[in-house]
């Protein structure tokens, strides 16, 4: 395990240094200062040894003590403390400086990388996860660089220098000390080498993870269980995992405590082990007090490194933490960006065409762990879809959820690239357009609206920075936002997420934004939410304005959108089941007729109608 720790450590720490980039030099210098500071801190111990040996020498040689020498060693002791403090301070400042600059750069690089990724990535990975990686994990790295690395270096350098001095002073005694320490380390970490123990460790972590899972399920399920008066049920499985964990933990601790105690005792007493040898040598040569002085030297210095020797335990924890953080960050960097065209071209017109397009979600995008409920994204597939929408015409896409409707919109906007076939605008594959050119040609109005932190004006203007107030007000009027502007004013500041506005108000501002942008192609996902029912009239009027003079592809939900569309395609399982105008489909497609009946029935549905009629 020790060996494995070391190799993990290399991966984690060396990757960290890679990430550090240009600040590596500052970091190395800070580490150097830390090492020097530690070494200087040993000097007072040496000073006290020197003073005592001066007295012993003087006694043995019957000469008075060289008080000047004694005095100067005393001064040296105090001065070295101050000097070591200065070096420590310097190391501290440099390591923090380097650390903060490093994580600043790292965060920017991550954010820049995020901007190059296919937008589909963001529907699969939760905002929380990404935020955690960029914010919290990077914070951990800062802690590691500014505190742990200097700490590590100080620990190691102290131990190395003292053991080095030992060997220099008397290689036999030095060897004994090193041997005792190494044996204590082996005992402490030997349990990790045992296969049986490895299984236990795995079991321990599994049990802990299990508590996580069962308590999540417990917390999620409790409201429902209470509603059905069965809340005691979920408790049973949580209890089981809690008890299982406890048993693992106790077994593990019992195994480990014996070795830990031996380790502690050996480290505390390691200096004792030189004494039998010293006694033996001294007994065979009583007039030579050199060996006794050496023993004194060893003993005095041993106190200098005692904290470092015990500290070795925390090093392995730290390395494991850093590995996890680095892995998460690398996971983000590993996601491949959307390929950029070498020679971008502009489309000749704004007709949209799908040419035998195939698409499915790939494994390199992480699994959606956020619990987002729209199943369209799950195992959605586009299976050889072909259609053409002329410029200025509208296409309604209808079908069950999970049939592939929303993926069609995503592919036009290049949230993903098709697996085969091509998505074309104006006869040109969207992959040959530059991103900004593509985005300029699209207005996208989806279920989820997003308000920036900024004024209402800024939210309507969005990317069209040159827009005048007159243009903004006009767009707002067309989007039926007059009441909103009257209530708040253009300069009203929206907080993050625009929470001061109701759902319906946000939708209309979103439409104002799209109207102002006036892009030639409109991608519209019409799934409506209950929240804007009170704005339904205004919303419908705003959408009607939005749809004027554009090429439209919409996932249709409202009856009127379907009837008025120039062409309708019915999608099932990623394939086009039927296509045509509303009238031609009613005539020729039974599937369409059934669907249409459902639309009408759903629209006509009145709650409690049956009761009333009785």
């Amino acid at each position, binding site marked *: 395990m020790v060996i494995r720790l070391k190799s993990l450590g290399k991966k984690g720490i060396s990757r960290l240094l890679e990430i550090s980039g240009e600040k590596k030099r500052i970091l190395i210098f800070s580490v150097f200062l830390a090492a020097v500071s530690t070494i200087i801190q040993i000097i007072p111990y040496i000073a006290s040894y020197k003073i005592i040996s001066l007295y*012993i020498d003087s006694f043995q040689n019957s000469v008075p003590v060289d008080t000047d020498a004694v005095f100067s060693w005393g001064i040296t002791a105090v001065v070295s403390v101050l000097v070591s403090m200065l070096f420590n301070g310097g190391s501290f400042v440099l390591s923090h400086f380097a650390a903060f600059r490093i994580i600043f750069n790292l965060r920017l690089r991550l954010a820049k990388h995020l901007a190059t990724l296919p937008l589909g990535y963001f529907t699969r990975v939760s905002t929380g996860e990404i935020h955690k990686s960029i914010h919290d994990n990077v914070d951990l790295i800062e802690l590691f660089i500014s505190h742990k690395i200097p700490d590590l270096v100080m620990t190691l350098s102290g131990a190395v220098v003292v053991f080095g001095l030992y060997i220099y002073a008397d290689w036999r005694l030095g060897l004994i000390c090193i041997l005792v320490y190494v044996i204590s380390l082996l005992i402490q970490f030997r349990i990790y080498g045992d296969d049986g123990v490895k299984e236990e460790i795995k079991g321990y972590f599994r049990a802990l993870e299990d508590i996580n899972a069962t*308590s999540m399920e417990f917390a999620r399920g409790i409201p429902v269980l209470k509603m059905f008066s069965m809340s005691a049920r979920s408790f049973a499985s949580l209890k089981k995992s809690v008890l299982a964990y406890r048993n693992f933990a106790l077994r593990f601790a019992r195994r480990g405590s014996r070795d830990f105690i031996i380790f502690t005792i050996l480290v505390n007493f390691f200096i004792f082990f030189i004494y039998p040898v010293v006694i033996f040598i001294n007994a065979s040569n009583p007039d030579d*007090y050199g060996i006794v002085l050496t023993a004194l030297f060893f003993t005095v210095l041993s106190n200098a490194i005692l904290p470092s020797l015990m500290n070795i335990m925390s090093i392995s924890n730290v390395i494991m933490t850093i590995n996890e953080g680095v892995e998460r960050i690398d996971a983000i960097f590993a996601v491949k960006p959307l390929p950029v065209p070498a020679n971008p071209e502009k489309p000749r017109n704004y007709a949209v065409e799908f040419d035998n397009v195939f698409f499915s979600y790939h494994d390199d995008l992480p699994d959606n762990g956020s619990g987002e409920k729209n199943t369209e994204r799950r195992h959605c597939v586009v299976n050889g879809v072909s259609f053409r929408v002329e410029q200025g015409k509208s296409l309604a896409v209808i079908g069950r959820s999970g049939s592939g409707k929303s993926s069609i919109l995503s592919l036009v906007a290049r949230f993903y690239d098709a697996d085969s076939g091509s998505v074309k605008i104006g006869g040109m594959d969207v992959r040959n357009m530059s991103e900004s050119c593509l985005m300029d040609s699209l207005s996208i109005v989806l279920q989820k609206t997003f308000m*920036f932190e900024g004024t209402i004006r800024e939210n309507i203007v969005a990317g069209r920075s040159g827009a005048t107030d007159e243009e903004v007000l006009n767009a707002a009027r067309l989007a039926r936002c007059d009441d909103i502007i009257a209530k708040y004013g253009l300069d009203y500041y929206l907080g993050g997420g625009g929470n001061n506005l109701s759902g319906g108000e946000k939708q209309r501002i979103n439409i104002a934004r799209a109207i102002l942008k006036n892009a030639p192609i409109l991608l519209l996902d019409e799934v409506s939410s209950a929240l804007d029912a*009170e704005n339904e009239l205004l919303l419908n009027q705003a959408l009607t304005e939005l749809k004027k003079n554009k090429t439209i592809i919409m996932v249709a939900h409202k009856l009127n959108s379907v009837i008025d569309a120039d062409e309708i395609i019915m999608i099932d399982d990623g394939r086009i089941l039927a296509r045509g105008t509303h009238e031609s489909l009613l005539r020729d497609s039974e599937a369409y007729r059934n669907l249409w009946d459902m639309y009408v029935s759903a629209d006509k549905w009145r709650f409690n*109608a049956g009761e009333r009629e009785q």
Partner: protein
Amino acid sequence: MIQSIRNLTGNRTGKFFRSVFATSLCDLANFGGIIFICWLLYLLLNPYLGGERAQTLHLVLICCGCVAYMVVCFYASIPAYNANFVSTYNNSTRGRLKLAEHIRKLSLGFLSNLNPARVSHSMMKDFSNLENANSHIIPQLFSSLIITVTVFIGLLFYNAPLAISFFCCIPVALAVLCIVRFMGVRLSRNQMAASVEASSRLTEYITGITTIKTNNMSGSRFERLEQSLNRLRSESIRLEVTLMPFALTTMSCVGAGIGIMVMFGQYKLIHQEISVMEFLMLMIVASRSIAPFIAFSLNFMMLQYFSESGRNIGRLMSERPLPGTATELPDGNDLVLRNVSFSYEPGKKILDDVNLEIKSGSVVAVVGPSGSGKSTLVKLLARFYDPDSGSVLMGNIAEGRLTDISTIDPEKLMHRYAMVFQESYLFRGSVADNVILGKKDATSDDVRTVLKKAMVDFAGPDDTVAEEGRNFSGGERQRICIARCMLKDAPIVFLDEITSSLDVYNEFAVQKAVDELTRGKTVVMIAHRLKNIMHSDMIVVMDKGRIVDIGTHDELISRDGLYRKLWHQGGND
């Protein structure tokens, strides 16, 4: 600090202190081994300073004694450490189960809003931290404190001036630590603000990236993010560099002790106020106690961090469960709100002195603009919360026999209610497992019947339901939930108008299922699309926390009030 310890140990402080005491003794014994080393060194050096030479046998015996001491320490430590572990893990197990049991009893309202991740975080991480604190931090804290104090007092007796010179810096270090903590709070305010702002800009960037890119705003939004990250960086540096001298003073105060003692000691040596041996012994013992003092300060700082975990748990435990112990349910299913007021946070009243009577068997729709309190009204009827003032009653209005539902055991009350809200949770298991929650002793025929009535045609009773029902679409999940409620066959049904954000297939099917579910029952529905509920027996119109009108659709539409306005706004004629 006592409170931290209490939080960390779950109030079993007596037993806890005994195990801490035992491990402290072990650590003290470990430390005490230095006596052997000092003894040996003394005997070895003595001859060279004019003292007697000790016999080799004597020395060897001391060595043996030391080894024996180590062995005794080992065997004595084992039970102490094991007792510590056992009590630690038993405590945390007890604590976890207690927390779970407590959560179970909390109000539906609290539980629906509770982020499950917070609970699992507490269960896992917070209690792990407590275990760590109990098994390592706190015992080490006490043992290192005891060692340091013991050494200090011992050395005081031996040679007071030198002892003081070694330890004099420690009070200084502690004082500086306190100043740093005090100042740190003020200084870190700017840094925390910068951190919060950077975090929210980052969230905005990530959440809005689609909108940002489709509007070609990547550059400007990125700039904003960069600015806030830069500010965070400079504030962080400012904070650390300002605190740096203090932190350093603390760190070096400990090391300084050695330097000062050597300085002071050599002075006394030169003036022959102290013998070489005395100086030596003092040096060795005192410098050995640096390690425990460092351990004390490190553990003290970690204690602050870990007691945050204790507080997290404490906060969950301090949420009050819903009262009510009566197990007898009232006769009759009429519902009455009497002078009910309620707010989620103090000062922001959502419901203000609301009165309402709902006769059993009637279909009631609650309508109003957003923020009017309609969902809160229904939640109070469903006993998600108890009102701040006034009461919710159930029983028979005509005969005047009404019972305050807050006196009834909450889970017993649930026998009368079925709820279908926007989000409904499905468990990992089979479809039948989920449906059978409605009625424990239902037969498989019963299950099949309700599945059919609830339009669950996309899955059979034995089909798997993944965690949270992820393998089904929203509309499909709702139909399974409706089947569950059908099986329960409770007399009162609460509905949040649920056909929104569904595609037409699901909308159609769910509508049919809802019709089946609510046949012959008392229904209270939060309505959004007015045309859907126009046939309700009673429509309750709400605005700003009060009921402003009640009546049938025809009555309300003829009045020139809020209802008519909402009707037209909804695009109806």
